[in-house]
């Protein structure tokens, strides 16, 4: 009898131990890259973001330590409804732990809400709207690479200082364009400039001549392009045709990516000023990563800052998981851990994640090189200014994010 009681106790203890161990040592992670795989933003995120995620998985070395890391990706087609459907399916059916990339502000804001409701994780490296860490901030979301406030602050201020004190905006008519226009206009006015007018064009417009003529007629010194991707490249190309720049007005690319510059060619893009937080040719770390990345791309493209952000964000996520000893499948808990730990990777250097979910790192003001200054393919940027990490983004004192205690 005594023997059988002790055996039962032992059995219970073993069962309990096994169950406890399983909870702490769940080392399964599923990563979802939700992006535009086929539309106008596919080159700056798209398949390249999946490549970057794959590289982060390999470089983390977690597989050798017994972790099982799965990667899936999907195309949200720049439609918030499609993005939302995929997000719900990924969380409920596929058991995805973390969303990466999620470019397009409209889609990002929709996914941000779902991720919060379901206690998942969103590391947004692609969307621009600064609302993700302001009015719409969430304990489950980190905004990794850049935002409209930072772009406005860096590019807008530099241009007003250089004498561009009257602005006309060409704005993409959806969440992103509105946010970028709003944030830039605020900076322009604060720096002593004036906004003369605005025209809002539908997303994915082929012909900008009507809008450019309106900008030209406004006689503003700066034509601010609050759009992105194919819309921006078409605007720049057609602005050259209509003699906007030769007529004395200056184009301000508020959001440009290296893939846009590549598509335009230096002949058209030369002299443009804009802000990014990553460039492949910044230092040895960025060069080494970019070379490996480019070898895996079908068109040998260098990484955009969005794709670099996917790599950097995932590495930090993996570090947090490792520090926790397993995957708790609790989004808010993991994000809190990520905010606790300082970030450090070869692409964005040392940084931190603020309480509102804003990742902090320096912002670089670039100028596009003249064709004769470029030494070869993808050698496009000159660094003309750096804003320190603590200066580049919206100060917490201006924040309306409920997570910020005042």
């Amino acid at each position, binding site marked *: 009898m005594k023997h059988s009681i002790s055996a039962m106790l032992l059995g219970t203890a073993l069962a309990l131990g096994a169950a406890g161990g399983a909870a702490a040592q769940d080392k399964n992670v599923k990563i979802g890259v939700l992006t535009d795989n*086929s*539309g*106008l*933003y*596919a*080159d*700056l995120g*798209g398949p390249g973001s999946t490549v970057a995620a794959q590289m982060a998985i390999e470089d983390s070395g977690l597989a050798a330590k017994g972790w099982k890391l799965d990667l899936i990706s999907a195309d949200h087609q720049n439609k918030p409804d499609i993005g939302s459907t995929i997000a719900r399916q990924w969380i409920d059916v596929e058991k995805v732990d973390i969303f990466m990339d999620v470019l397009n502000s409209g889609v990002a804001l929709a996914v941000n809400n779902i991720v919060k409701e379901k206690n998942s994780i969103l590391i947004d490296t692609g969307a621009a709207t600064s609302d993700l860490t302001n009015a719409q901030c969430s304990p489950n979301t980190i905004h990794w690479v850049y935002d409209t406030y930072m772009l406005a602050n860096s590019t807008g201020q530099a241009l007003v200082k250089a004498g561009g004190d009257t602005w006309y905006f060409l704005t993409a*008519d959806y969440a992103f364009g509105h946010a970028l226009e709003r944030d830039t206009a605020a900076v322009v006015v604060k720096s002593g400039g004036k906004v003369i007018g605005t*025209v*809002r*064009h*539908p997303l*994915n*417009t*082929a*012909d900008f*001549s*009507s*809008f450019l*003529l*309106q900008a*030209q*007629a406004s006689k503003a010194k700066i034509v601010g392009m609050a759009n992105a*991707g*194919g819309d921006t*490249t*078409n605007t720049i*190309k*057609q602005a050259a*045709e*209509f*003699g906007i720049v030769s*007529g004395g007005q200056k184009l301000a690319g508020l959001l440009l990516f290296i*893939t*846009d510059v*590549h*598509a*335009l*060619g230096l*002949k*058209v893009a030369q002299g443009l000023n804009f802000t990014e937080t990553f460039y492949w040719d910044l230092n040895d770390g960025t060069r080494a990563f970019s070379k490996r990345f480019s070898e895996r791309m*079908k*068109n040998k*493209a260098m990484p955009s800052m969005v794709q670099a952000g996917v790599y950097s964000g995932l590495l930090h996520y993996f570090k947090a998981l490792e520090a926790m000893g397993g995957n708790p499948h609790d989004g808010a808990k993991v994000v809190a851990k990520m905010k606790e730990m300082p970030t450090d990777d070869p692409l964005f250097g040392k940084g931190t994640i603020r309480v509102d979910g804003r990742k902090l790192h320096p912002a670089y003001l670039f100028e596009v090189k003249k064709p004769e200054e470029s030494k070869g393919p993808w050698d496009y940027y000159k660094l003309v200014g750096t804003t320190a990490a603590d200066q580049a983004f919206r100060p917490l004192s201006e924040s309306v994010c409920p997570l910020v205690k005042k």
Partner: protein
Amino acid sequence: MQALYAQLLVGLINGSFYALLSLGLAVIFGMLNIINFAHGALYMMGAFVAYFLLNLGGINYWWALLLAPIIVGIFGMILERTMLQWLTGLDHLYGLLLTFGIALIVQGLFQNYFGSSGLPYAIPDQLRGGMNLGFMFLPVYRGWVVVFSLVVCLATWFLIEKTQLGAYLRAATENPTLVRAFGINVPRMITLTYGLGVGLAALAGVLSAPINQVRPLMGADLIIVVFAVVVIGGMGSIMGSIITGFALGVIEGLTKYFYPEASNTVVFVLMVLVLLVKPTGLTGRAA
């Protein structure tokens, strides 16, 4: 008022692309009874062929205007011979689905190899610069596009409506068996007609290459509007599609000025109105 003139002119420029593309669609629909959803993809191919001719073969814009339509036209004729011809006599839906599938495959292939941001194609040196018209700065290239596409449109109309060849074509659509009885090779004529329609699309592609980025999806973005143009003008009506093409370009241009947010919807609103009032389109005849 000055701004208004400028918008009218800009609308005319866009209208010339609509006209060229809808003309090709109208020719194909009128003669083959096929709703050619691959038209946008073929337009895109025209631009890409111009890009390759320049960058791989050093062949300039002017030759591309001639060669690209021929090359893409031959591709179109191969499509017609190998696939489309088997659909003769079937419901419109089959042709629509087949050509839509072809468009998706072609666009997917191009996107796979060239990405989505596209490739640069410069304006030819002879057409650079612009002139000040007083009310606007008109780039020479845009002026060229309007004039050239008008000429091409009218020439196509003349070919189909006023020549012997055009008469055969129209007769062959009406009653293929009878025309064949006169010793005319109807299938070959249909293949050539499809080639002509496709060539027009490719020509529009070459014309647009210096204005827009040469992108795999450039046609997909445009084709929906062009279909609306054809529907408004009346399916299969040659002159109707030319006139509506230009007219809708102008209306769209004005919308971009007065209410820019609606500029990519206005064409469809018009389409709905026209279909409600006159289901055969403005110039279409009842079937």
